[in-house]
């Protein structure tokens, strides 16, 4: 790693940012996903319509990674502040938002996300206490249900890539196939899982996530070993282009305090 001119987190943020297209209405979660989103705006999507679930519009973070979606670092130059009903309801749950970026503590092969808790084994019929309580769904469930497509950002470790998450906080493709249809979700579901090692995308029919690409510094074998299910590999698996100098410069302008350089 030390030989690379960029960190794995930076590669993940840039690969995530590349998923966003100019002009889209896009919602960014807290932390890394916000840097990834604002990187896209700073680099290749100047007309992206960026928002946070706090209802903060027209802003560009100042002073480094905002501490939260409502942090003063993002409130210092907004053109509009509204509220949760507006941002998560009118603009996201409605289906109006093109793309959202969310994080995950645990994700499974159908792109279901757990951010609620870790249990030892299945929870069972009784809702017993979690071994480790996490942060809950936040706005990610709303984004997962409503956004046109969702990009999931997650550190690639076996414990985070489970065959089945212990708790679905935010729905991916549920049991796979057309399982989302019975709930009538207006959003299309996760289009990519971008990790510190590569990019997974869903099979168009089964909706199982398969390995689509790896980074210059990773490999198919490394990724399969770091995945908690028997990860299938796309016949077109390929290497993700390394960050360009322009991309890195844009990212680091947004990530002023170097949160991604760790």
């Amino acid at each position, binding site marked *: 790693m030390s030989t690379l001119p960029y960190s794995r987190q930076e590669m993940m943020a840039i690969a995530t940012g590349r998923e966003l297209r100019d002009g889209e209405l896009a919602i960014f979660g*807290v*932390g890394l996903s916000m840097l990834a989103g604002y990187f896209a705006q700073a680099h290749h999507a100047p007309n992206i319509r960026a928002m946070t679930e*706090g*209802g903060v519009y027209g802003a560009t973070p*100042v*002073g480094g*990674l*905002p*501490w*939260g*979606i*409502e*942090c*003063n*670092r993002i*409130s*210092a130059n907004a053109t509009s*502040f509204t*509220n*949760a*009903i507006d941002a*998560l*309801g009118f603009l*996201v*749950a409605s289906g109006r938002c093109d793309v959202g970026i969310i994080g995950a503590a645990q994700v499974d092969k159908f792109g*279901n996300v757990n951010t*609620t808790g870790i249990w030892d084994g299945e*929870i*069972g*019929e*009784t*809702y*017993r*206490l*979690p*071994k*480790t*309580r*996490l*942060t*809950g*769904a*936040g*706005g990610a*469930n*709303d984004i997962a*249900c*409503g956004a046109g497509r969702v990009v999931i950002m997650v550190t690639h470790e076996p414990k985070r890539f489970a065959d089945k998450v212990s*708790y*679905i*906080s*935010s*729905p991916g493709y*549920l049991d796979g196939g057309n399982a*989302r249809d*019975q*709930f*009538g*979700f*207006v959003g299309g579901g996760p289009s990519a899982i971008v990790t510190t090692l590569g990019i997974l995308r869903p099979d168009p029919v089964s909706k199982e996530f398969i390995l689509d690409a790896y980074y210059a510094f990773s490999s198919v074998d490394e990724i399969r070993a770091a995945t908690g299910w028997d990860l299938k590999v796309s016949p077109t698996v390929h290497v993700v282009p390394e960050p360009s100098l322009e991309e890195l410069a844009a990212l680091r302008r947004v990530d002023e305090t170097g949160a991604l350089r760790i």
Partner: protein
Amino acid sequence: MPGNKLITLAEAVGRYTRDGVQYASGAALPVGSDAVVFGRELLRQKRKNLHAIFHCNTQQLNLLAGAGAVDKAECGFSGLEVFGFANGLRRAVESGQTALEDYSNLAMALRLLGGAMNWPFVPATVNIGSDIQHRSAFAPDEYPATRKIPTVTDPFSGQEIGAFSPLKPDVAAIHVSLADPLGNAIMLGTEWSRFELSRAARKVILIADAIVDTDCMRQYPNLVRIPDIVVEAVVYHPFAAWPQSSPGLYDVDEAHMKFMNKSLSTVEGTANYVLDYVESYNDIDSYLDLIGRDNIERLSNSATSFLLDPYRKWIKTPAEIAALTAEVTA
């Protein structure tokens, strides 16, 4: 309820809360506007067995739960954003002390909207199909939980969607940037769901960083999203959200956010925190001393300060506020 409603924080907690109350705050986010100081006062007055309605967790819920004062909580997000897990709340949940009922952030806002509207239920197109719908910490033996987010049939299409239960908290302490003595309030920064909460709660107490003359409200009536007619009491308390931020007034206190959250990760650390940062001050001045006057100056030097500029000329001095408060108490 026109008329001057300024009372002290201690009086507000004494008059409007009791053990077991369904108490709402945190119609705010973990890093921004929340009346954290109200939670400190709840602990100073030994309130317990609270049923906490927090749209999102904040340092207030983190403290209250960590100190063992919360039996039940309902939240959309229970972390501290970039500051990580909320250790006090997490410990209370993992030990079984606090039953935490999970919803999403939109769900909590809609449940407040439904309470404000007095609807029997709110249509749910989110949270359905996930374990948020099927698992209930308040009814752990029911699986799938059928009373938490039941289904309802759309009479137009015949399709099934979900139904959220509305929220009508007994009392809400709402942090605002500016309030006048009558209870008109201006929020700078995202409202999150404070607008809906102010109509859903049975009693609303404003906790304001600054008090302004009513002339300010008449100049900016479109900014007054909480009008006096829904407000019971107004409390003046500078740095009421500390260590969280208040746009236009002060930034997040990063060091104390981390210190506080670390303290709350153990029983012992929590006890020390309560001793040092809850029971240690007597009035606003000693509270500000506790934060540190240099620290206050640093935090007040915010990139958002210009947001307060249009209203500065109407801000009342502590002496004026004290006189107004004495008027109500007399």
